Every structure is written in structure tokens, then in C-alpha cells.
């Protein structure tokens, strides 16, 4: 064995060791990259939650400030509508007297002069419509304010032991009229779903919102699947449609208040933010997956809450929006 061979072997070992080291470096770089990405995702999820919380606080303030003057305006408008009707009745009476020639000429002349100016017939026709429109507008404002309150509510609604399946079925019945013409709904419910402490009407609002949204995504008709299941102490509810899908760039905004894809005047953009607020209150999470042209699946996870302690724990875990981010 020559010394050159010994050195040759030593060199080969060194080379191989270096290759091994490079491979190891690559592996740990890859690992680092993955961990970094996971961190970034977590961070943006946290920012997102923080943003929602800030909006929630702002909304609570706005809702509170608007609520009282709004109530005054609505109540006065109701009285004004009554007064207006009485005044219009008086006007109609005057017109009738005039036609019957029961009024002195001087009054008729004065009345005609006013009529030429303001057109009483037009007022009689237009005023009730204006009142009705105003009332409708105010009702809409009231709805937005109340949705804002739900979204930003600090105290969760009352809880009772409820059967989520029954709640899903009842919600479907309530919206069935709106969707039955163009959508087929399949219920696929887990018969052994445990009961949990939750607010029935709030969850019902969540399910109705999601089903109606799904129906809107399928103007040409389609299929909606409502699915429940459970694992350990978590209940999973999925509402799946085969509609148009939600474009990736707007998925992150979808739970923000006032975010809507509907044209102005249709939809307040509060639906999904209210949904998010309610699910968060229940210590759960909501997320979505969506594929353009294939459909969308909203997944809600709720903890099975059986004792006061569980509920507190659930509240601590609140505030996560899974998936969508």
C-alpha cells in the first residue's frame, strides 16, 4: 500500500464528508424556510385577528352612538307618518268641498293659487311613498347597527344545550323558500353528534347566512350540502356548494365587516363578519376552501362545551380564523 493511495483515500473521505455536509445544510435550510413560512402565516393570521378585533371595538362605539339618535328618528318618523296621513285627509276633504262648491270664492281662489304653486295632487301621491322609502332606509340602518353590535358584542348570548343537527335543519326550513327554486340541498348529518352549550338563534343565523350566500353563488342552480360530524370533543359543520367559487384575492377579506361582492344596495357586507363574530364567541373557528368554477366549502369547528369551565376554555381559544388566511 503506497502512501499516495492512503492520501487518495483520505481525500475521497473528505470529499464525501463535504457532500454530506452540504446535503445536511440544504436540508436544514429547507426546514428553516418551511418554519419561517409557517411563522409568517401565523403572524398574518394574528394581524388579521387583531384587525378584526380593532374593527369590532370601533364598530361597537359607532353602533352605540348611532343607535339612540336612530331610535328617535324612527319613532318620530312613525308619528310624522300619522300626522301626514291626517293632513292629507284634511287636504282631500278641502278638495272635495271645493268640488262640491261648498267653499266661499275667496277661499277657493286662495286655495287654487297655492295649488298652482305646490301641486297638491302630486303631494298626495308622493308623500306616502317618501315616508315609506324613508322608513325602509331607516330599517336598513337599524339592521346594520344591530349587526355591528352582534359582530362586536363583548358578551356572548345565552347558552343552552342544543342539538346542532336540529339547528341546521330548522335554519334550512327558514331559508328554504328563498332557495328551493334553484338549489337542491342535501343534509348529511352525524346522528351521534353530541349536544353542546350554544346559542341556538345565533347559530341559526350563521347557518342561514352561509346557505343563502351559497345559493347566491349559484344563480343558475346547483347543489348545497350541509354536513355535520364530530371527533373527540369537536363538532365540525361544513356547508358546501358547487357554485362559482370565491376568488383567492378576496378570501382574506371575506370576514371583514362591510366587505361585499354584491352591487351597492344589495347586501350590507355584514353577513360573514357577523358569522365570524358568533363562531368566535362560541370558542370555535371558521374557515373556507374554494376552487373557482368548482365551489366553496365553509368549515366551522365548535368545541363540545358541557361545563362552565369548558366554556371559559373555549372563550380563551377564541379568535382564530382557520384556513381562509
Amino acid at each position, binding site marked *: 500500500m503506497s502512501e499516495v493511495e*492512503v*492520501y487518495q483515500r*483520505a481525500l475521497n*473521505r473528505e470529499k*464525501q*464528508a*463535504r457532500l*454530506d*455536509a452540504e446535503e*445536511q445544510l440544504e436540508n436544514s435550510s429547507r426546514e428553516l424556510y418551511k418554519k419561517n413560512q409557517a411563522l409568517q402565516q401565523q403572524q398574518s393570521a394574528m394581524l388579521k385577528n387583531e384587525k378584526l378585533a380593532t374593527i369590532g371595538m370601533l364598530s361597537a362605539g359607532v353602533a352605540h352612538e348611532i343607535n339612540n339618535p336612530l331610535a328617535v328618528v324612527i319613532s318620530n318618523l312613525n308619528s310624522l307618518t300619522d300626522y301626514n296621513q291626517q293632513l292629507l285627509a284634511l287636504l282631500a276633504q278641502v278638495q272635495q268641498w271645493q268640488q262640491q262648491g261648498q267653499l266661499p270664492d275667496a277661499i277657493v281662489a286662495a286655495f287654487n293659487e297655492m295649488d298652482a304653486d305646490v301641486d297638491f295632487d302630486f303631494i298626495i301621491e308622493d308623500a306616502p311613498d317618501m315616508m315609506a322609502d324613508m322608513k325602509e332606509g331607516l330599517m336598513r340602518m337599524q339592521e346594520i347597527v344591530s349587526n355591528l353590535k352582534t359582530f362586536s358584542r363583548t358578551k356572548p348570548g345565552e347558552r343552552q344545550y342544543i342539538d346542532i343537527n336540529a339547528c341546521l335543519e330548522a335554519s334550512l326550513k327558514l331559508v328554504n323558500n328563498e332557495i328551493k327554486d334553484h338549489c337542491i340541498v342535501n343534509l348529511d348529518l352525524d346522528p351521534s353528534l353530541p349536544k353542546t352549550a350554544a346559542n341556538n338563534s345565533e347559530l341559526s343565523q350563521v347557518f342561514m347566512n352561509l346557505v343563502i350566500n351559497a345559493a347566491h353563488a349559484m344563480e343558475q342552480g346547483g347543489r348545497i350540502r350541509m354536513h355535520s360530524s364530530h371527533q373527540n370533543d369537536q363538532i365540525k359543520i361544513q356547508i358546501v356548494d358547487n357554485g362559482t367559487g370565491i376568488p383567492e384575492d378576496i378570501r382574506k377579506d371575506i370576514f371583514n365587516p362591510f366587505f361585499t361582492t354584491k352591487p351597492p344596495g344589495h347586501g350590507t357586507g355584514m353577513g360573514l363578519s357577523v358569522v365570524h363574530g358568533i363562531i368566535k364567541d362560541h370558542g370555535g373557528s371558521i374557515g373556507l376552501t374554494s376552487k373557482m368554477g368548482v365551489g366553496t366549502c365553509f368549515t366551522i369547528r365548535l368545541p363540545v362545551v358541557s361545563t362552565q369551565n369548558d366554556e371559559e376554555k373555549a372563550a380563551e381559544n377564541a379568535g382564530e380564523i382557520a384556513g381562509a388566511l
Partner: protein
Amino acid sequence: MKGIVFNILEQMVIEKAGLVAWDQLLNDVQLDSQGIYTAGKSYPDDEVVALATRASEMLDIPTGDLIKAFGCYMFSKLVQRYPIFTDQKTTFFDFLKSVHDVIHVEVRKLYDEPSLPDFKHKQINDTQLLMRYSSPRKFCMLAEGLIAGAAEHYQVKYSLDHRTCMHQGADHCDFLITLEP
């Protein structure tokens, strides 16, 4: 054992006996790794034992003594590579007390799942420190050598009483270290 331990062993053999001896050693023991070691990767503990056993035969030195000498050598190389640990501690005892809670803790950050021993210590008085070693690998002689290396670094004289030993069936080794004037 991490490759760095093998790298230092190789360095020692080559320094003391030459590359031909190391080549001979590898040829004699026929290891799975073929003697190719990368600092951060783990290799079977048996390979250290096999290399040390064969080396002790070649050099006619008891294996324990050889491993101890290796520990002493390894210490100087580790300090060269990571001077911060000795820089941070001014005395021999303070340094020894930091091995478990500071140095090996750092090692866990730098190396992926290293196999490290467990150390407990008790300062008996100003001149006596009891170190209790336990490890499934039973490399207490390596520890003794590392301690010897540390003493050299801090320029202290000491005696070590290896009073309980895992190789005698105990579940730990006790080193009673006494500083000597």
C-alpha cells in the same frame, strides 16, 4: 455520537501517529460509515468504541486511558471551536458547573438531537466539587478526559476520585474533584 467527535478523534490520531495509522485503523475496523464523518450528523456510538479499542491495541495503551486522553484532546479542540464557554467562566469549578446547564444546552441548539449525558453537581466546599454523571453510553472516561482538559485550560492541579462507576453496575458515576495547591 456526532461527527464532530469523530473528526476530533481523527485529528488526534493523525497528529500523534500520522495519516497512514488512521488509514490502517479504518481498514482494520471496517465501519458502516467508512470513516466519512460530517460534524453535524450522528453516527453509531459503537464506532467510537471500535476505533478506540483498536487504537488501544495498536498503541498498547488501555482503552480507558486512551479514551481519557482523547477527552483531554477533545476539550482543547472544542474550546478552540467554541471559545465563548471558557471565556464566560473564570474558574475551573464555575466552568464545570456550567457544562450541563449552559454548554450542553447550547449544543442542543447547534446540533440536531445530540446524545448528551446528564450531569448533577454539588459544591462541597471551596476545594471540592462532586459531579454525578449518567448516560446510557457510559462514556465516563471521556468525561474524565474532558475534565482533565478543562483543568489544563484553567491551569489548576486537581485529583479525581471516580468513586462510583456505571461500569460497575451503578446507575451513575460520581467524580469527586479536589483542587490541589
